[in-house]
């Protein structure tokens, strides 16, 4: 394994940028493949849903390749299996699912998936903090992502945020949705409270992310949800543009 030079490069470049000089994160701007981590509670679907939304947000239009969803046994038991009729429309018929027995097997499957040029992106779900998912394992995944250009979103269910080399690390919980137009009593389009607590290219920040089908929409947190769709002051425009 050739980890020597990138690791030292990573350590050197980190303090060079002060957080203020970095551009704020905004949806729809990710162009290169990225290793992201999403920490989420196991008792809700928000972790995998947000990972999927991020992957769709970064995907090119007209993407036809298959995508991989790897689950270890514990996350499968806690959070259930993917359900095809509930997947986002364009992704439904392209899913390949891997049910791994252990976290080691799941990590192996993730790395093999990242090395495959015929995959659009890879989603992993691993519960808690297994011993095998240490900094070295995370670093291997980051390198594979950068080398082969396949994005990885690793969902960590009920996990502590340990040491990792992921380029973006999010803490996610479900957020109340906007009431839909026709039935105000029904749950609306998915929304999440997302906390970007560590990122290489962006300063940390908190948003309410709303899934609008093919793209994400970011709103500042703690905004009272309007019953009518007003144009909100900071809408989807960045606060510090530039």
């Amino acid at each position, binding site marked *: 394994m050739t980890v020597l030079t990138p690791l030292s490069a990573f350590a050197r470049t980190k303090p060079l940028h002060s957080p203020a000089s970095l551009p704020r994160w905004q949806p729809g701007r990710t162009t290169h493949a990225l290793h992201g981590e999403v920490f989420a509670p196991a*008792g809700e679907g928000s972790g995998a849903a947000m990972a999927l939304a991020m992957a769709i947000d970064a995907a090119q239009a007209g993407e036809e390749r298959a995508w991989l969803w790897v689950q270890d046994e514990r996350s499968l038991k806690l959070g259930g299996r993917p359900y*095809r*009729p*509930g997947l986002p429309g364009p992704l439904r018929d392209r899913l*390949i699912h*891997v049910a791994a027995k252990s976290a080691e097997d799941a990590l192996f499957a993730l790395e093999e998936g990242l*090395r495959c*040029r015929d995959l659009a992106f890879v989603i992993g779900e691993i519960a808690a903090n297994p011993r095998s998912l240490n900094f070295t394992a995370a670093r291997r995944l980051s390198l594979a992502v950068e080398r082969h250009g396949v994005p990885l979103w690793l969902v960590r269910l009920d996990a502590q945020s340990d040491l990792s080399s992921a380029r973006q690390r999010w803490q996610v919980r479900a957020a*109340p949705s906007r009431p839909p137009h026709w039935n105000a009593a029904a749950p609306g389009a998915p929304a999440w409270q997302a906390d970007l607590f560590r990122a290489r290219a962006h300063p940390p920040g908190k948003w309410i992310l709303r899934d609008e089908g093919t793209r994400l929409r970011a709103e500042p947190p703690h905004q009272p949800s309007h019953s009518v769709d007003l144009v909100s002051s900071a809408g989807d425009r960045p606060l510090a543009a530039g």
Partner: protein
Amino acid sequence: MHAGVLLADARALCPELAVALGDPGGDLAFLERLALWARRWGPWAALDPPDGLIVDTTGVAHLFGGEAALLDDAATRLAACGLTVRLGLAPTAGAAWALAHYGPERAILHPQDSLDNLPVAALRLDPATLLVLRRLGLKRIGELSGVARDALARRFRNTRAPAANPLIRLDQLLGRVPEPLLPVMAAEFPLVQRRLMEPIRHRSLLDRVLADLCEDMARLLEGRAEGARRLELALWKVDGEVPVRKLELAAASRDAAHIARLFSGKLDDLDAGFGIELARLSAPWTEPLALSQGDFERAAEAHGTSLAACIDRLGARLGAGAVRRPAPVASHVPERAQRWVPPLEPEGAVQSELVFHARPLKLLDRPEPIAVLYASPDGLPRRFRWRGAVHEIARAEGPERIAPEWWRERGTVRLRDYYRIEDGEGRRYWIYRNGIDGDGRGGMPEWFMQGLCA
């Protein structure tokens, strides 16, 4: 004295008789193991109880340097095992049996040879039929085919069993009638092997042999414009065991490095014992593969692997059942609306889901019961407890009533009322009530959590 005499009668004639107990079950088990081992001389072997083996050597003799050399090799190996054998080699199983039992030692039947001089007992007939033939004065096989044939056809017209009808046996012997023992057609699947000067016991050497075999196989397959879907690696050990490793590929391939890599993952638990003396790689299932593929391993470093290679690698380590794809099924019961199929299987035509059915992103393998507080038996609960946490229902949509599939389920299965709900903190779930109060199919309806929404 002849076979079948009572032991007491035999002892009366010869009191010093040495007695060994028979063990028919053990003999048969040994014969089965020997048949497996005997596949070293051909890809296909069958038992001929109580004391015979049939090996199909079609297309194999050249690996041993000719048919005579093959028989010599077989005689040497079997003698080394401490067995007394009689060998015969012929185009049909019946002729080989006749040669082995009544022919000269290590006989090989060539096209111009005749079996007419063998006794009729060489036809594998039962004793009653042999008695009839002896009384008719027919002693040699050649005598059956002349004038006697019409008379015999009349005499045995009602016997269908081959062992009781000499004419059927005769036709089997000459290959005029197919015999179910034989393969219907000569299945010549690609087969390469390495016979080793010294038995090998170390993994590094075995990997070398495996790589050579894979390259031979790749060359053979390339010549046939085929790719392997299933491969079998058999290793003959000195102590008589033959471990076999099987491999299935998601798509036809003849990439030697890829195949060797997949096999090497399956050899970790191999016990070489006293050594491996013969390694053979065969491809029982091949598919046409016209285009030539590049080198998987080197290309993988630069451009990544192909999807089929990725699935092969995942399947080789995690088991084939771990890598699957959901496929739609025509059923309105949620857990039956999808099934899991191999990842590269083409999708069948199924009516698509209705757009206005909102379904959860993930489905629990088994619906989990939730404890509810409800206003009325038919209404929606205000609050429920799931996995120890209390959820207030803030918004809900439903019910969506899903009836059981009466044509495949028992009459006591209850209908379900599904609700899509959001709790006070924004968590979205898919819950259902199993049955309605007073439907006569059980007590009070229970509530279950089935899916987690995005």
